[in-house]
């Protein structure tokens, strides 16, 4: 469709103050947290409410124009990458906490509210929203629903899909519907569960009823140093085998610790091969009993030092270091890729050994930060753009994700498939699997206008025979570029 006519139709539907058309403004939306892919959209709209979101979608649907929903743009898989000649629908103006119901432990919020602001809004009632992605200060709940976001504490508490009662959704034809309901028992297919984690490909969420949890009565956190990553990994297996479900179990290797200490001085030991963070929360007597056992298991598996956070402030420092790890890597490397793969927990040590070998072969360094409790790895591939290492780094990063699949795991634990890994999907799922997933997509979006080209491989993006081939034809054609 003609760009000027599209813009005029959107202005007529939403008003001039809700439509961005000048090239400088549009450039701000050209990528999300995966900055290697950039596409400038034809237009960005900033609706104020559900009706305006629906109006914008109807304009797109009527004209067959693709659209992409966008929250804070912190996603790391290119899920909010614009489509050329398409519309970006930003949810940043829908940021009201509509209501809080402390008796039923839930709140109704708009999609542009940040993850952490939900917990802030309900803190006075002793409640919080459990999913805690590292970007929680800025990422939005709408994005969390799209990505089924996890976080450090999902081992015990689950993912976003376990914490949503009901959502209002604008479907790709512009109609508005509701999925889920007041209680976790609704008749029919679990469309709410299918929608959460669909990466913006099934519709745009415009209102969310989130489940809130009471703040745990007690929390205890320790950091244990280990002389090897393997010993730290064995400790995790022993903790779980003892019947303990920690709130969080995180691991960092020496390189990640070096970066974190350079950036925020969180108090991690600089001279250790691996640090394990274990947090237990729950009823005080339960936490006290199990925490003693965790300490014992750490010693049994050769810890060289156990640091128990004595105060809430000390605990916050531990977490500040962990959650700052991605950004901190910038202190020790000019450029880096964040990878997000999952392996069965029992294959952690094997995965790390293989990652080390792949890194050596590529002549690059990899810092490892990961959710050890659920086998979710976040290898950080360090490289220098200036030294021309980009391509090697990107190849190493993809190899690591595909290694995870080969070890019986998954391409992604929480960052999503988006643009980044769509062409790797055939590594994990066969043609019939992908065709069946397409059936679900087409039930919601028969005309392929809702975030097209994401999540599932397309011949256009990945070559006629979908497969993990690079570079992208689009890149070769100059339609997308990498920095």
């Amino acid at each position: 469709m003609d760009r000027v006519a599209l813009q005029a139709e959107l202005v007529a539907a939403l008003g001039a103050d809700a439509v961005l058309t000048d090239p400088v403004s549009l450039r701000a939306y050209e990528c999300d947290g995966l900055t290697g892919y950039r596409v400038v959209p034809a237009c960005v709209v900033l609706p104020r409410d559900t009706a305006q979101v629906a109006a914008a979608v109807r304009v797109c649907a009527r004209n067959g124009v693709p659209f992409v929903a966008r929250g804070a743009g912190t996603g790391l898989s290119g899920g909010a990458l614009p489509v050329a000649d398409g519309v970006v629908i930003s949810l940043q103006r829908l940021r009201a906490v509509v209501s809080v119901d402390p008796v039923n432990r839930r709140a109704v919020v708009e999609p542009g509210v940040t993850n952490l602001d939900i917990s802030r809004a309900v803190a006075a009632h002793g409640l919080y929203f459990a999913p805690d992605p590292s970007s929680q200060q800025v990422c939005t709940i709408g994005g969390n629903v799209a990505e089924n976001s996890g976080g450090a504490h999902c081992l015990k508490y689950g993912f976003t899909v376990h914490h949503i009662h009901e959502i209002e959704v604008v479907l790709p034809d512009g109609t508005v519907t509701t999925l889920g309901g007041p209680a976790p028992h609704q008749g029919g297919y679990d469309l709410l569960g299918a929608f959460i984690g669909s990466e913006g490909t099934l519709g745009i969420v415009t209102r969310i009823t989130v489940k809130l949890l009471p703040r745990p009565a007690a929390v205890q956190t320790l950091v244990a140093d280990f002389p090897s990553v393997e010993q730290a990994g064995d400790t995790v297996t022993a903790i779980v085998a003892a019947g303990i479900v920690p709130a969080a179990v995180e691991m960092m290797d020496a390189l990640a610790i070096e970066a974190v200490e350079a950036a925020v001085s969180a108090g991690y030991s600089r001279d250790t091969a691996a640090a394990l963070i274990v947090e237990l929360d729950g009823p005080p007597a339960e936490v006290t009993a199990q925490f003693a056992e965790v300490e014992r298991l750490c010693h049994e598996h050769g810890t060289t030092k156990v640091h128990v956070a004595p105060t809430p402030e000390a605990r916050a420092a531990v977490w500040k270091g962990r959650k700052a790890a991605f950004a901190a890597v910038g202190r020790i490397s000019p450029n880096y890729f964040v990878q997000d793969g999952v392996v069965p927990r029992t294959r952690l040590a094997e995965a790390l050994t293989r990652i080390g070998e792949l890194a050596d072969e590529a002549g690059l360094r990899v810092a490892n930060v990961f959710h050890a409790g659920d086998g979710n790895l976040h290898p950080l591939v360090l490289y220098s753009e200036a030294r021309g290492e980009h391509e090697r780094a990107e190849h190493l990063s993809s190899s690591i994700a595909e290694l995870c699949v080969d070890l019986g795991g998954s391409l992604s634990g929480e960052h999503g498939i988006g643009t980044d890994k769509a062409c790797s999907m055939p590594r994990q799922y066969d043609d019939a699997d992908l065709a069946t997933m397409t059936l679900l997509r087409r039930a919601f979006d028969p005309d392929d206008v809702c975030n097209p080209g994401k999540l599932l491989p397309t011949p256009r993006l990945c070559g006629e025979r979908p497969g993990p081939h690079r570079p992208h034809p689009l890149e070769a054609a100059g339609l997308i570029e990498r920095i």
Partner: protein
Amino acid sequence: MPTTRFTPSDVDELRAVLADTTASHPRLLVEGAGTAATTGGRPDPADAVVDTTGLSGVLRYNPADMTVAVRAGTPLTQVQAELAGQRVAFDPARGRRGATVGGLLATADGGPARQQFGVLRDLVIGATVVLADGTVAHSGGHVIKNVAGYDLAKLFHGSLGTLGVVAEVVLRLHPLPRHVVTVAVPGPAEEATRTGTDLLGRGIEPAALEWTPDSGLLVRLEGTEEGVLARAGAVEAVGGTILSDDAQAAAWAGVDAVADPAAPGTTVLRAGTLPSDGPGFVATLAAAAARAGADLAVSSGVGTGVHTVALTGGDHAAVLAAAHAAAGPAVTVLRHDGLDPDAPLWGPPPAAVALLRAVKQRFDPTGRFGAGRLSPWLAPVRDVPATEGVPA
């Protein structure tokens, strides 16, 4: 009941059965152990039954990863029996009668452990399904954390055999608790809801929080001995009594008996409400049952707002109508033995009913599976406008 029964014993046989019989047996009824044969509708006549009980057995148990892959026709009790020091944290009443994992997924069943662990939609991490034309599709995998691709297991949760056949599932496991105590707090529904809300707010973390008129509020606590006893003390302080092992077992058997009663001619329904609306909902149904001359048994998840109601004697249709009026599309009839054959089982359709139909149309375009179930929400496929461009 059709006489032809297909009894595949693995995914390949199931695929072959479905692919080879599209012309000879166009309409199929999927059946597991038969413990929920009347849940969610009255199946129309079919040309053959696909019996999933041959799809049985544990495929892969990884205790250190706390996952287990099973064929979907495996009885839940058999899965539990093969686990060592671990469990599927899922306790639907029908489990005791041999209900299969796939059947429990397709019927979206659940028990009191829903409070802490949810139901199968929350515990299934991977699934293999077979569609009407024999297409075998997987989603998820063997790891707890996995956001790659759409989650087909969610779609099949509550599908009542109308989309395809669930062939295999991978389940997340939890440790068996070392110590389990149930504390009973007597009182009516309103008081139980207040007490339950208070206990949840204080971080007691009950594994189950269920109210019945006979037992009052049942607070199930699981964990270490020290932790459980400390928490039980807090519940005693609000008027609770720690039950003996026998009394504990009897109390939970009483809860199970509401969802899966032995008496013939019983109608069982399940409904979801806001937790705070639970007592009002229960009172509404009790009043309707009294007017209809029916005996009503009830069990309410105080934290979840999920209620199970069993009716014996009297006019069940009037009570079901009251449930539909109060809880709309969140009402499922688990058993309709006490209802007339033509009584409507489903209430007002959910807002997204058009999407339900669109999903049905895409997954089962010829209407091969489960006709009559989820009716009338799933209009007959021929009445749904055809959408072109089904992808390869």
